[in-house]
């Protein structure tokens, strides 16, 4: 399949590169040849490495959660009941979490489309999709704040809760709080990127506010990688923390 990300303008060094080989011989060639290994804009490589480091951070949190949950002698609170929402007098388990999951997946979809239309240089669609993504992200954070409010009102603290193992609160606030922070930061950056797209900074290769780095549509792809990663983390939190 053709590589869909052309990335930033070609430098002379990139133009003189050998055409990439497919499969394993390409891998060997990338690492053995006397040149940069990753044939992509540096911003994207750095985003991937940042994501890799963040994978380890979240994995440590989830492994820590597993250790606490296995080793406690008290019963672990049942997430289905803890996170149930009462609608019309009926208690529906995990309703809020399910809605949050759908919202985050939707935002991932709109982000993927924003990257696509960015490369197609369709400024209006890209900006609109970015703003929808940011809006969905903000709604997600808002619902998380709502969920925290409910739980704090019910007496959940990092050191105690009314239903069982005391570690529940610590793990819950740490993991969802860290994830919510990631979502919040993502929303801020997506709004900034939407403004850049709208005023044509990426097309005009204008440098940013805090950096001399010139704008290009590859930036939306890097931001998209971050946003999809945030969604990816939620997939694991949803499964391990809420469903397990």
């Amino acid at each position, binding site marked *: *399949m*053709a*590589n*869909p*990300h*052309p990335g*930033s303008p*070609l430098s002379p060094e990139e133009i003189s590169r050998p055409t*990439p080989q497919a*499969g*394993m011989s*390409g*891998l060997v060639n*990338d*690492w053995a040849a006397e040149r940069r290994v*990753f044939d*992509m804009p540096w911003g994207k*490589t750095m985003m*991937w490495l940042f*994501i*890799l480091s963040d*994978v*380890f951070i979240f*994995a440590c949190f989830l*492994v820590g959660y*597993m*250790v606490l949950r*296995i*080793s406690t*002698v008290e019963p672990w609170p049942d997430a*289905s009941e803890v996170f149930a929402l009462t609608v019309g007098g009926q208690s529906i*388990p*995990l309703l809020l979490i*399910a809605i949050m*999951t*759908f919202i985050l*997946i*939707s935002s*991932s*979809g709109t*982000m*993927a*489309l924003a990257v*696509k239309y960015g*490369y*197609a240089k369709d400024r209006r669609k890209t900006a609109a999709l970015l703003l929808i993504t940011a809006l969905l992200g903000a709604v997600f954070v808002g619902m998380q704040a709502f969920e925290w409010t409910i739980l704090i009102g019910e007496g959940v603290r990092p050191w105690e809760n009314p239903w069982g193992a005391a570690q529940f609160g610590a793990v819950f606030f740490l993991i969802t709080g860290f994830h919510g922070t990631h979502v919040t930061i993502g929303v801020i950056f997506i709004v900034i990127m939407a403004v850049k797209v709208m005023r044509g900074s990426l097309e005009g290769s204008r440098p940013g506010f805090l950096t001399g780095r010139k704008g*290009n549509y590859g930036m939306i*792809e890097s931001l*998209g*990688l971050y946003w*999809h*990663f945030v*969604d*990816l983390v939620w*997939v*694991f939190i*949803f*499964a*391990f923390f809420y*469903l397990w």
Partner: protein
Amino acid sequence: MDQGSHQQPALRVYLRVWIWLFVLSVLSYLVDLSGLEGLLKWGLITLFMLLKAGLIVAFFMHMAWERLSIVYTVLVPPAVLLFLAALMALEADYTLSSRLGIFAS
């Protein structure tokens, strides 16, 4: 900057992935609602989780179209996390048995 020779994945690829993510989320939610227990429940939750993660990484994060050098750089290191998880599960199991043994009385 010439990007004409490169092609973005077609719109329907994204839409299809999107729909599948919705379907898999509904399925994992149904597992919780259905009250399944034990290995079947955990197996299904893990299966749907991995399928969703795979779809997001492969299509939304474009891994399916990347060179192997970046694919391996990103995907191989997290594999050691499974080893960490296994070690810590053993450790936690030991902690639990000590707690039960010492604090039970």
